[in-house]
């Protein structure tokens, strides 16, 4: 009888001890916010363009963590979708064309002699990449522009252009080699065709 009592007491004691430890840990090592949101936010391109329908990248990251689709980010493109799929362990899906299509990277340029200094684009820019003041010419800090497109619409004189980033010697990169692998007979034709194009 006493053996059973001892066993019960020991187990009870253990339960109390571990309960205390866990309770302490829950208070002391409490994680602020949802860490998955931060991880998703890190993957998103941070253009803050709102093409996903949310006001910025973080709100979309929060929406994804709450179960929204991962294919609503055109600036990130397929690589972002793949990375998100990898992180969340879900199926990678093609980009939802409803929210726009993947385009080459562009940044905004203001045709400065046409700018009337209305400051509307400055208010629209989510990353403060446009400098200028009322009735003064504005210009884009190209190194800070994310190419989100949000400044184009508010411009009353249409003097903002979205231009592709020019390739320089420092930004030029190698293309992926064309795989010329001819595994079966019908492959060879396709391979030579691709090589011809390249």
């Amino acid at each position, binding site marked *: 009888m006493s053996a059973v009592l001892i066993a019960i007491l020991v187990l009870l004691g253990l339960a109390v001890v571990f309960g205390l430890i866990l309770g302490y840990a829950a208070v002391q090592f409490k994680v602020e916010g949802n860490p998955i949101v931060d991880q998703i*936010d*890190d993957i*998103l*391109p*941070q*253009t*803050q363009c709102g093409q996903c329908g949310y006001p*910025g*990248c*973080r709100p979309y990251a929060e929406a994804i963590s709450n179960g929204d689709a991962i294919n609503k980010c055109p600036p990130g493109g397929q*690589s972002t979708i793949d990375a998100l799929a990898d992180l969340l362990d879900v199926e990678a899906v093609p980009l939802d064309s409803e929210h726009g299509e993947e385009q080459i990277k562009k940044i905004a340029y203001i045709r400065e002699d*046409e700018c*009337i200094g209305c400051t509307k684009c400055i208010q629209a820019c*989510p*990353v*403060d*990449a446009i400098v200028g003041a009322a*009735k003064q010419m504005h210009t884009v800090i190209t190194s*800070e522009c*994310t190419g989100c497109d949000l400044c184009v619409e508010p*411009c*009353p*004189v*249409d*003097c903002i252009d979205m231009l592709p980033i020019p*390739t*320089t*010697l420092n930004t*030029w*990169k*190698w*293309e*992926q*080699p064309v*795989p*010329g*692998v*001819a*595994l079966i007979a019908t492959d060879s034709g396709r*391979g*030579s065709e691709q*090589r011809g194009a390249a």
Partner: protein
Amino acid sequence: MGKIFAFHGGIHPPENKKQSTRSPIRPAPVPAQLTVPLQQHIGAPAKPCVQPGHHVLKGQVIALAQGKISTSVHAPSSGTVIEIAPKPVPHVSGLSAPCIVIETDGKDTWIDHTGLPDYTQLKQNELIDYIRHHGISGMGGAGFPTDIKLHLGDDHIVNTLVINAAECEPYITADDMLLRERAEQVIGGIEIINYLLRPSHILIGIEDNKSHAIRVLEEAVRGSSLNIDIVVVPTKYPSGGEKQLIKLLTGVEVPSGKIPADVGIVCQNVGTAAAIHQAVTQGIPLISRIVTVTGDAVRKPQNLEALIGTPFKTLLTAADLQENKLSRLVMGGPMMGFTIEDDQIPVIKTSNCIIAATLDEMPPAPPALACIRCGLCEQVCPAELLPQQLHWFAKSRELEKAKHHNLFDCIECGACSYVCPSNIPLVQYYRYAKNEIREEEAEQRKAEQARQRFEARQARLEQEKVDKENRRRERAEQAAKAQKAKQAAPASESTPKATAPGDELKKLKTAAAIARTKLKKAQTALEKAKAEGMNDLSELTEQHQLAEKAANEAQQAFEQAEKSAATAAPSGPDLKQLKTQAAVARTKLKKAQQALKNAEEKGQDGIESLRTTVQELEAKAAVAQQAFDDAEQSNEASHTSPGENPKLNGLKEDAEKAKATLDKAEKALAAAIESGSPAAEKMKAGVEKLSAKYQAAQSAYEAEAKSTTPTTVPAKKEEAQLDAKTLKQNVSIMRTKLRKAEKALGEADAGSDTAVELKAEIDRLTSLHNEAKLALEAVEAKQQADAAKQGIDLKQLKVDAAMARAAVTKAERAIKKQQETEPEAELTSLKESLVAAQNHAEQLNKTLSQFE
């Protein structure tokens, strides 16, 4: 001779070096035009310091180094700068980059240049700066600015200096020929580097296929005071790679992601050493280099000393190129070089070799086959990587895994591609993967930056909102307080509270009020005690007297202060204050009278004291009223100029207030008469006074109003503008309605009743719209005409014009879009709007041009 270690892998491709070593180094002809790229090395491009049209001398600085990793650029020959523009440069991409184009005058006139008589007199930093300003950058392959490497002694302990003379790549003999002919220059350069880095020993690594060069070098070393070891290494590609050579000579492996200096070794090319020597001893900047021109397509393969900026075409001609045999032009060696398409591309500081290859010599790569996992690539890899794995990862874009397999340790030597039996372009895959990873990292950095900026902006906006809210709340609180105070003050007169009494005044007032309250309390206590017939009356009376005294003192102080304030500034706000004072005095009087009356009715004691208070108060009220009246009169006298709306308003207010006061006073009087109080007489007098005052105020207001009627005329103009605005709004509302109706029509079935109705509605709306527009245009035209008369500011017009232009482009875009989606339909209306917009824009432009 030092001990030789071994590095992993390596290959033995056909050397093909004999062809170009038969003849000595010859100077290349000076071309008619030299194209000098501003960026010939890793780092930031130099900044041009000459303009087109400037005449430059040989050796003159034409572009200055900017940034830490950069070197200056010098004119290779004398002549005129004709252009600073993007030109094709030696790069795999075939892209153009900014270049300075110099038209040579054929005289090759040197700028004054002298070397340093004794470089050991200079401090090390000064000497390194000297080398930097003479444009010396690595002449081996990557072209790293040499001064950076020479600074390595500052924060690293450099114990070994390795001089790279291995020149392991096939075909290239530039370093070989340099050693054969100018070994003493190389040794001189090594001495200078030794002075800067102070290594404990110096090793020259040279492959055993350069026996002539080794002999000359040994000769030269004997004449040097330094202890230089010449280490002959077996011929194996890529023994000339920096890390491979270090492994060969010292047995030390440079850790992944580190530079040789981290293990105490600095590596310099022989060409660089010679260039340093020339710069230091003769003051000759890096304006020429030895280029091997070889390949089966040239009849006389040889080494030429070419000026930087010489087009390859000139060198090929000098080596007697057979155009018909040429199939590929390669810059650099056959292993790590790249094909170039344009023979006008200039020689730069890193161009060591040009191969004009025939088709037999360099046949096009056969198509790649599938990987058979033979493992040959792993055996030859000098960096001990797993090329096969890297290939798979690069192909399937598993970049993270490729990174974990140390992709960035790949030196892109091409040994794996060379041995691959399936002809897989392995190096290309690695280059591609490296690029992708670098780009991804750059993007991540940019995203991080964007996020920080976005968050900072959000925080700022949030803060602004909070601040605004706070300000609003503060204002609301203040308003509430004012309201409360106003309510707390007896509403006998509707005069606004004194707006801005001095702080001192306020304090005094509060003190007086407190004293009064105390007094009152004491009084009530006394009365209570008296009524109850208690004994300790004497004590209470004493207290009461004390309180009374204090109250009187406080009141006096306050009044004095008030008076002084009133005399100090008898202007607008003071008037108000005076008025308030008068009102307060009157109220007090009234209260006191009331109290007196109550007391009389009840037959209580203390009536005497009350009576005196009332009298005092009466006197005070009279004084206050007098002061106010005086002030008012003086104020009115000082502001008799007509046309001041605020004054008019003030007068009106005054009159109204006076009226209200009068009414109230009359009422009070009636009540007083009814109750038969003794104050009735006085009240009557007060009422009379008030009514007189009211009349005066009224007449003053009327007079003022009459005199200011002309001032309302300018308001008419405003009205006109307002009209234009409302008209504009109307037009836009109309337009929106019209659009909506049109849309509804489009949705409704054609021919149905609703459609007909809608059409009618649309017609009606259109006519309305047109009418509104016409009206608006008329108003606008009038405004413009007015503006033209008055000379409106140009800026506004410009802005209008720009907006109109934008409207035109927007309309055009809309039409285009419409045409794309559904031709024919609805185009007419859009076109109309376009025409209208165009007209508007034109009109505005015309007006604008008139002014300009």
